[in-house]
């Protein structure tokens, strides 16, 4: 028996739990309606992939963390409250394996929740856009489905980072109710507060112009926004100005993910 097989069992359990929970189907429907509604309200689909991504950028900064909270907050605290974490301790399943399995399962569910509506939306754009879009943007200002795919991938990367933070909150919580409170604090503090802190630091000259692009990578929301500007939206606007440091932003999101999973593992081990 390898750890990989045990982790696979945990992943399968998480996915099956999501599939069998009626409220998650409602959440999927709500997510799809929100994505379509926001895109249609902005008029982006009729103009092409890039305008659609522009319409969705700001709402996604709130929708994706909300989705991460809904998918992640009950997982570990519920297993702990049922005593299943104690039972897992008697199996050849290390804490990190359990945490990784739960994370992977929920991350796959989150990917489905985002990719399904975005794929359908891309299909809708393909049939309704008034301008022809290429597969790959070949020059500045050109629209392409590849840019929309890049938007989707970066949105997933952002979602995975926030999901990891929410799982840490779930592992640190002592009840389902406290898990909700901590998850809301994650939403307010990490998603919104840190973003405003960096921007306020720039306004108050705590963060200089030279270090702003790097400082933006510290906040998951700013890092996500910076990556979108640099690798998706920049193709629409011709400028020499750099919006963000792409590598620092990717590293920032990965650090949030890895450090949060580390905190989750320590919290599960110490329970």
């Amino acid at each position, binding site marked *: *028996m390898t750890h990989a*097989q*045990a982790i*696979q*069992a945990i992943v*399968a*359990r998480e996915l*099956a*739990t999501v599939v*069998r*929970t009626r409220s998650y189907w409602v959440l999927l429907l709500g997510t799809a309606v929100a994505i379509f509604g926001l895109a249609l309200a902005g008029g982006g689909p009729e103009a092409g992939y890039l305008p659609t991504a522009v319409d969705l950028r700001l709402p996604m900064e709130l929708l994706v963390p909300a989705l991460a909270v809904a998918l992640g907050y009950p997982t570990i605290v519920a297993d702990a409250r*049922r*005593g*299943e974490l*104690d*039972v*897992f*301790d*008697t*199996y*050849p*399943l290390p804490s990190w394996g359990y945490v990784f399995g739960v994370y992977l399962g929920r991350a796959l569910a989150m990917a489905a929740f985002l990719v399904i509506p975005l794929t359908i939306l891309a299909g809708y754009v393909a049939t309704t856009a008034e301008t022809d879009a290429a597969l790959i943007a070949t020059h500045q200002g050109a629209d392409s489905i590849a840019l929309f795919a890049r938007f989707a991938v970066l949105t997933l990367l952002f979602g995975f980072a926030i999901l990891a933070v929410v799982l840490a909150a779930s592992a640190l919580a002592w009840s389902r109710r406290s898990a909700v409170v901590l998850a809301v604090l994650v939403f307010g503090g990490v998603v919104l507060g840190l973003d405003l802190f960096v921007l306020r630091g720039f306004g108050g000259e705590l963060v200089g112009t030279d270090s702003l692009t790097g400082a933006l990578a510290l906040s998951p929301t700013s890092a996500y926004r910076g990556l979108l500007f640099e690798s998706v939206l920049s193709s629409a606007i011709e400028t020499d100005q750099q919006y963000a440091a792409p590598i620092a932003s990717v590293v920032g999101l990965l650090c949030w993910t890895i450090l949060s999973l580390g905190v989750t593992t320590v919290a599960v081990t110490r329970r």
Partner: protein
Amino acid sequence: MMTEDNRTNGTGPERSTSPVLEASDVTREFGDVTVLRDVSVGLEPGTLTALVGPNGSGKTTLLRVLCGLLAPSSGEVSYHGPEVSRKIGYVQQQPAFRPEFSVQETIEFYTALVDAEPEEPLDRVGLTAAASRRVDSLSGGMTRLLGVAQATVGDPPVVVMDEPATGLDPGMRRRTFEVARSLASDGAAVLVSSHDMTLVEEYAEHVLVLDGGEVVAADSPGALCAEQEADSLWDGFEDIVEGPADELAVLGVNR
């Protein structure tokens, strides 16, 4: 902290009678309260040992320390059994499972963690007929039996059950002890905490009496009765423990 010393092969026809799991001078404190004080016990393969004691005497804490779920403040717990993928099976006091799954799926999940077959654990506790039922539609007794089935997954040499029969009807209580007895007959060292002295006297081969965080008596039910010149284990238990046996013991508070 649990140490390991795989010096014996605890199961099988030539099994040893030396303890497969041993606690030596274990003390466990929670802040200023000492819940276990210098407890030394050994669990032998093929033996059903019952842990009895008033409420609040430290039974659950001892079981959790033996399972490695709680580290002792001092002393040591050592495992001397065979090197297997799962050494100790554990049933918590109120077993609970994800409600979205059936009995069969639940046990399949646990068996997947140790690469075992799911049929045997359910068959052992008599839940095969309820395999397709959702966990949240099970009665309290059936959920306990599912907990016991879970504890047997992977054939661990040690099985620890925390009051598996509490709150069940007489038939279910007896069924739980029968399962514990059959596990011991198959070579496992089984430790069951219980308040049911009648069933303990009938099924257990060894009884540990815990009172005020200390093991105050340890012997076979017959020998304990003989020592106390009691007609039943219940009468003997009342003589062994300090104060009324049916009263809640609050550790850290003098009776």
